[in-house]
């Protein structure tokens, strides 16, 4: 083998340096991504369930990757403590009351930890702080609920199918729906109903006005209903009326007694038939007497002694009538 010259050594050196440079650059880039060389901020959070979280998974704040999961330890049967290494640059933006939750990066992506800010004032986070956590939406729980609602949906659609089947089989319903005349009739009836309602409304308005008037004491009925003195007068009147009727009753009673008393004047007048015949005869005689008297008086008027006087009287009457 020939001894290596200087130029081959340089080429070899370049070759090796390039290769190792590639390696170092790649390692550095990965390290930067995993935040190994920058100063980091370690915080912790206790979860019930970390849903397959692995060491090295991302921690995100508002969707920005700010760190990685450093450790996952089981504390007891219901607590998993997750240690996170966060970029120190984000320290001012994470508050002590931030809430950590386990989520996924897309539907089928990696499990990640999301930090969410809470709208309440709190000092910035310190190294070693314990973050609060929330239970995330578990897919299996969601699917469980979905299963129940699915079953309900099946029952509902089955019922609906029966209902529509029955409706389809009903002749009467379709006739009713297809009847054009019915619609016209219905429209007419409705129009009538509308008119009637308008009338009713007017009537109601009148009644309302009347009632209003009544309340204010207008009109006779209003007077009747609202005047306080009227009630007193009414009471007085009715009392008087009661007195009068009592008196009347007493009078009637005495009258009755009198009529029932035989040989009394009233009884004789009302019940004695002989008296009534005599009375009729007397009245007949009186009639005849007065007729005779009337003739005599007529004859007297035509008597020459009195004739002038009657003429004057007739003339005076005619003058008064002329006026």
């Amino acid at each position, binding site marked *: *083998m*020939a*001894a*290596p010259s200087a130029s*081959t*050594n340089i*080429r*070899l050196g370049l*070759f*090796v340096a*390039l*290769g*190792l440079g*590639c*390696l170092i650059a*790649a*390692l550095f*880039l*990965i*390290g930067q*991504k*995993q935040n190994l060389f920058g100063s980091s901020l370690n915080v912790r959070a206790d979860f019930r369930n970390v849903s397959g979280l692995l060491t*090295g998974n991302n921690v995100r704040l508002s969707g920005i990757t700010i760190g990685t999961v450093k450790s996952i330890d089981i504390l007891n049967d219901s607590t998993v403590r997750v240690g996170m290494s966060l970029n120190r640059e984000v320290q001012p933006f994470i508050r002590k009351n931030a809430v950590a939750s386990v989520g996924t990066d897309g539907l089928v992506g990696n499990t990640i930890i999301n930090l969410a800010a809470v709208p309440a004032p709190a000092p910035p986070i310190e190294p070693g702080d314990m973050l609060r956590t929330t239970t995330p939406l578990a897919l299996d729980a969601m699917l469980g609920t979905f299963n129940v609602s699915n079953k309900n949906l099946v029952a509902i659609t089955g019922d609906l199918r029966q209902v529509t089947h029955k409706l389809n089989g009903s002749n009467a319903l379709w006739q009713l729906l297809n009847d054009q005349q019915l619609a016209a009739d219905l429209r007419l009836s409705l129009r009538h109903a509308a008119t009637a309602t308008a009338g009713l409304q007017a009537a109601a308005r009148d009644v309302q006005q009347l009632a209003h008037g009544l309340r204010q004491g207008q009109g006779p009925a209003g007077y009747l209903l609202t005047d306080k003195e009227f009630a007193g007068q009414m009471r007085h009147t009715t009392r008087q009326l009661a007195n009068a009727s009592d008196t009347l009753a007493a009078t009637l009673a005495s009258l009755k007694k009198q009529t029932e008393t035989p040989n009394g004047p009233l009884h004789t007048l009302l019940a004695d038939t002989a008296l009534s015949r005599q009375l009729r005869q007397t009245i007949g005689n009186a009639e005849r007497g007065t007729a005779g008297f009337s003739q005599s008086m007529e004859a007297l008027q035509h008597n020459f002694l009195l004739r002038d006087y009657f003429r004057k009287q007739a003339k005076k009457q005619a003058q008064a009538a002329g006026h």
Partner: protein
Amino acid sequence: MFNSPFLAEIGGMTRFAGRFFREGFRPRYEWRELLSQCYVLGYQSLTLVGVTGFIMGLVLTLRLRPTMVQFGAESWIPTMVGLTIIREMAPIITALMVAGKVGSSIGAELSSLRVTEQIDAMEVSGTNPFKYLVVTRMLATTLMVPILNLLATGLGLAAAYLGVNLKGGTSLALFTHNILARLTFGDLLSAVVKTVFFGFAIGLIGCYKGYYATNGTEGVGRAANSAVVMASMMVFILDLLAVQVSNLLGLN
């Protein structure tokens, strides 16, 4: 079964590897020869490995595109191609190309030295032929294959970026970010570490086949051929092992 040539070869290779470690850590070191071998085996393979890596990156991207578009996952092409190149494609392509080029050259070189009895002459003259010939070559492949792999990865990713931008456009920043978002230390380091083993296996098999070549000039051809075949095979077996080990270590 216990005297099968296959098991005998594995045993021989293991002893050979043990001898490499034994002699390799012992002074005196053949620095100049090591640098020379690094130049020949590493630098001079760069063109071949680089072109192959570039073409594989481009072809992979262009082949993947229609399917990904069909699934509406066009934005995932950089991630997918990038991870494929970094984790599997570049190491395997590099190792296979190096096995083809370097494995055969080592096998042919050492076996021709063996059959012309120059190795025996070296032993006689007091030079340690194992140290001078074998340790330097094995060390050179072990060190150079990871570096070739890194450069092939870089070129492959550049080709992938080009392929992504042939149809549709993605900025370099987004492309880089898409790949880095899914890339972990485990991905990169397991890829680099396994290429170290690939390089070691290629050097070991090439040297073993060449060092123990027999049957004159005919043996030279057979040594070169079997070195390539076995080294390529070994690369895949090691890749399988690497997947298992990185899974066990949780690096996947």
